[in-house]
């Protein structure tokens, strides 16, 4: 089969699965609908890898045009599948993680009654994500963008009987609307400037627009910077960057496989993907890139600090995701798009691994998510422990630089070091990039701390799950609004309650974990030379545009401290975590109990939810109340419909009152009418 047919099958197989499971799931039963969706996803995954390998071996990029979508004048949008290195990488990431998550869900969702719906949503999400990454114009990109948003909304609120899940779903949707607004404005700006939304027509035009802009308030504003910044607002929403990040931790209300697939590996990286895809714009938009760096750096720092104080296992990983996304944006901002993509690629493996591992822990703990109620699980669930270790090593970037050419380490080591080195190089000429570098370095240490903290609290120390585990933290319910997934579904095999012994997950859940472990170990080692190493030009083959004066990926002699410092801070984080959670485990609860200002600040996530609630939610409600009660009810309704209606009724009463029923009154009215009309007529005639 031609590659064109193959990729078409690749993209539409998940849609077919979603339709079958979603519309006919109840009729064909649980197992068939799960089998159909999972089977089709594995088919997609297989094709994606075939395509990736072909691309790797030098197959040319191509475009499959399927159907016209919206074609009005210059606004030409076509349903199409764009295959180049960038999309090939994304196809592999999306389909692989998705296929594994599908498989994992067989075990994780075994007790749920709505399995067909769940699998249909997962497949629908995958289709939308594939449409996003293969888009050849902004319209399809936007379609995929909104499609994944919809699927995310549906999946976060999958347990729709739980109020917190509904609230989280709505929050995710609304926050993303803010980003989408900027995104839509960005698309409009692009269309307004270039009269096209097709990437292949747009990118060659960009150099001709370098100086276009407006003079406003005594400043020259570059149009490309404006477009880049607006489009980045969209990316901020989707990738949960600072200011628009609040939805991501709450999104953990969804089932854990969803968190792994959507809120760690794929959807949230769409923003990074878009910035890399639009590298021709960003390469010519220095201001927009500085914004990208700043936001990325602040996000990674913020999320890492918040992650230090969280107790919900999934939330810790969620903040970690947020932080790693910040890394990716730092990379894109300094011009190392390849490094950003590489981190995206490796992160997909180890973050999915961590989430699924956490899912396995939660499963083992009978849907307990509070780490303070865990401990000493290593012996009980050794496989999960092993894969979590692998994931943690990968995310903390442990590895030895400067041996075997690229150094030796797990996946995160290569990509994170790549980003930091690129930031350092860019920082030589750009102070903002310098800031990015320093923040990145600090965050590496924080990452190590909270990641190991998670491992130690969960797997080491004394078991805290024997007795009733809620007693010692009854006062902390407020923070973790809902730390347990609803167990309304029947626990036939292990019943309710917390007194049971943790047990290892079934193999259908462990297999994906093992597969992902392989990725987390080897993805960096194998692919680093191609993504960011000396072969990167041959690998990317123009899918990412790099301007002539961008040298961040070129070989350059770096000071030794730059190369070694990431390892150093990472080890430092590990040691501090060791101290707090292995040697002196009684210390952290005491710090928490003191409620110091820093701890409170971090514990409450920098008070973002409170501030947003005060400014936006309350403000909007106040404004809405003002418009509703004063503007609408009093002014518009009062003077308009209601006032008019009142006047009408009054008029009606008057008219009805004239209708007395006496003939002589009627006759008199007639005569008055004659008289009036006569006077009017005569007045007209004279």
């Amino acid at each position, binding site marked *: 089969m031609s590659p064109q047919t193959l990729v078409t099958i690749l993209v539409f197989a998940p849609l077919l699965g979603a339709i079958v499971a979603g519309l006919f799931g109840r009729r064909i039963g649980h197992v068939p609908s799960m089998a159909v969706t999972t089977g089709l996803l594995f088919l997609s995954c297989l094709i994606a890898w075939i395509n990736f390998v072909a691309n790797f071996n030098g197959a040319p990029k191509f475009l499959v045009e399927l159907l016209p979508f919206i074609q009005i004048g210059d606004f030409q949008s076509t349903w199409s599948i764009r295959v180049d290195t960038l999309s090939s990488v994304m196809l592999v990431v999306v389909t692989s993680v998705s296929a594994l998550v599908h498989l994992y869900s067989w075990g994780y969702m075994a007790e749920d009654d709505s399995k067909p719906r769940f699998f249909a949503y997962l497949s629908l999400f995958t289709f939308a994500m594939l449409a996003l990454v293969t888009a050849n114009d902004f319209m399809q990109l936007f379609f995929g963008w909104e499609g994944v948003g919809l699927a995310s909304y549906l999946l976060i609120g999958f347990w729709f009987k739980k109020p917190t899940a509904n609230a989280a779903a709505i929050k995710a949707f609304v926050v993303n609307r803010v980003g989408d607004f900027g995104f839509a404005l960005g698309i409009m700006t692009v269309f307004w400037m270039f009269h096209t939304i097709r990437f292949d027509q747009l990118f060659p035009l960009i150099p001709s627009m370098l100086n276009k802009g407006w003079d406003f308030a005594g400043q020259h504003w570059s149009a490309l910077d404006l477009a880049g910044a607006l489009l980045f607002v969209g990316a901020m929403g989707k990738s949960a960057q600072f200011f628009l990040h609040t939805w991501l931790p709450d999104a953990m209300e969804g089932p854990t496989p969803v968190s792994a697939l959507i809120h760690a590996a794929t959807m949230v990286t769409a923003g990074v993907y878009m910035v890399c895809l639009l590298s021709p714009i960003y390469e010519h938009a220095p201001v927009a890139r500085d914004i990208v760096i700043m936001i990325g750096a602040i996000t990674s720092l913020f999320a890492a600090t918040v992650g230090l104080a969280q107790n919900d296992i999934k939330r810790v990983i969620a903040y970690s995701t947020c932080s790693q996304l910040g890394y990716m944006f730092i990379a894109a901002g300094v011009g190392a798009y390849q490094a950003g993509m590489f981190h995206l690629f490796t992160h997909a493996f180890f973050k999915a691994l961590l989430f699924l591992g956490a899912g396995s822990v939660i499963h083992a703990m009978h849907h307990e998510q509070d780490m303070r109620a865990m401990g000493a699980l290593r012996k009980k669930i050794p496989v999960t422990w092993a894969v979590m270790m692998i994931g943690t090593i990968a995310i903390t970037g442990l590895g030895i630089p400067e041996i075997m050419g690229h150094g030796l380490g797990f996946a995160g080591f290569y990509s994170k070091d790549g980003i930091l080195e690129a930031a350092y190089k860019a920082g030589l000429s750009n102070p903002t990039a310098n800031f990015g570098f320093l923040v990145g370095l600090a965050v590496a240490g924080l990452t190590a701390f909270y990641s190991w903290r998670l491992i130690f609290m969960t797997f080491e120390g004394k078991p805290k799950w024997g007795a009733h585990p809620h007693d010692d933290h009854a006062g902390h319910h407020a923070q973790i609004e809902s730390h347990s997934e609803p167990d309304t579904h029947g626990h036939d095999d292990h019943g309710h309650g917390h007194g049971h012994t943790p047990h290892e997950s079934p193999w259908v859940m462990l297999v994906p974990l093992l597969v992902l472990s392989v990725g987390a170990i080897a993805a960096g080692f194998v692919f680093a030379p191609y993504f960011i190493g000396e072969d990167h030009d041959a690998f990317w083959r123009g899918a990412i545009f790099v301007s002539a004066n961008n040298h961040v990926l070129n070989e350059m002699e770096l000071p030794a401290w730059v190369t070694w410092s990431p390892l150093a801070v990472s080890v430092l984080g590990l040691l501090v975590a060791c101290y707090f959670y292995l040697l002196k485990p009684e210390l952290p609860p005491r710090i928490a109990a003191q409620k110091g200002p820093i701890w409170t600040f971090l514990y409450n996530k920098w008070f973002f939810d409170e501030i947003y609630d005060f400014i936006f939610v309350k403000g909007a409600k106040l404004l809405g109340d003002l418009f509703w009660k004063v503007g609408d009810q009093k002014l518009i309704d009062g003077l308009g419909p209601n006032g008019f*209606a009142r006047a*009408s*009724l009054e*008029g*009606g*009463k*008057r*008219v*009805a009152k*004239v*209708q007395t*029923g006496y*003939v002589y*009154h*009627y*006759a008199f*009215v*007639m005569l*008055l*009418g*004659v008289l*009036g*009309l*006569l006077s*009017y*007529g*005569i007045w*007209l*005639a*004279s």
Partner: protein
Amino acid sequence: MMTDLSSALMICLPELILAVGAMLVLMLGAFGGERSTGAATMFSGAALIAGAFAAALGPHGTLFAGAFHMDQLAAYSKVAIYVASAFAVVMGYGWMNRSNERKFEYPVLILLATLGMSMMVSAGDLISLYISIELQSLALYILAAFQRDDARASEAGLKYFVLGALSSGILLYGISLVYGFAGSMGFTQIAHAIAAGGANHGVVFGLVFLICGVAFKASAAPFHMWTPDVYEGAPTPVVAFVAAAPKLAAMVLFVRTLSMGFFGAHEQWAQVLLVIAVISFVVGAFGGLMQRDVKRLLAYSSIANIGYALLGIAAGTQLGVQAMLVFMVLYMIDVTGFFACLLALARNGRPITQISDLSGLKGSKPGIALAITALSLSVLGMPPFSGFWAKFYVFKSAFDAGLWQIAIAGLVASVVAAFYYLRMIKIMWFDASPAPVDGSPSEARWIAFACALFSFPVVLIALHFLDQSAGLAAASLGLH
């Protein structure tokens, strides 16, 4: 002076059919008594249908020294009037059967009233105008009081008669003044006199009286006072008749008189008509708000609608007349359907008249409820129902004639009036049903359904033909 007798008789064949038919039915009834009511009804219906065919296909011409015009306008109106009257005959027969009061005079009077209307739309001078109006009115007075044992019906008939006599007096006074100033009764001669002498005080003086007299027949405000009482008191099939055909006849009479005889004074009478139109739709819209009785409500509705139709005449253009003709025919169909629905509804043998009695109709009589809904939406002017097209035509012609302030006032009034139609719909569909309603008679039900179906979707096809024939009819006045 006169065309030869045979062709003259052919030209007024529709009237002859009606007059002779009425007398034959009268004979039939006089000798056959109550038992012959069915036959009389059938015969009357046949006469009306035959008359309609004769009017549609017969020759055109002017008879009796210009007193009688048979042209496209007359043919159009006659066909519409005859068909509406035939419906009234059928509905009345069913109604009399149910109330055990079979009277053969009912179809006879309908025939004679129709004859009067037929002469109204053909009237070419002031005498035939007056006599035809009297012919029609007298029959209607009697019909209104037809249920002579019912106090309300008697009251309705008496009020109608007394006020009608007053309006006839006003009309006659106007006619005599016009005759005095123009020196002739014929419309063409009057037009010549106005062209020669200008629209002076004298002509306007008489004309205003004339307009007032005819406005009474059309139930335009402020000469509308009889309408709610008569609608409420008179028997429902009679009201169905009074509400439909005579209105069209009066409007056509208006158009013919004003355009043929008094076009030289267009500026004056257009203003007078506009005042009447505005008062009519304001009174119609606001007066209906407080009503509890469906028939009274429809009375105000008809007052408002006459106001809208008058806009078309006041525009003084061919398009305006065309719009008025389309409007009136569509309105006649709607209103006939409305009354057919009312005839189809009874509770414990007593007809439903209060709006509140309609509550919960969707459960007991979904078909009728649907028909009333469609007709209400149509009368209030909701697209794509027929009433929307009717109003659209009239308002468009008013806009084209530069009467946009008036047209906007009309639109506002129709928004106000929308309230009472919507309230009716709300009561039918959303309120609880107090008690079951009786089974509805088939003829009323079928007429209701047919009219509702016409209001949508048949109108979408029929409108084309209606528009065309109305255009031809309007063209026969020689306006531009």
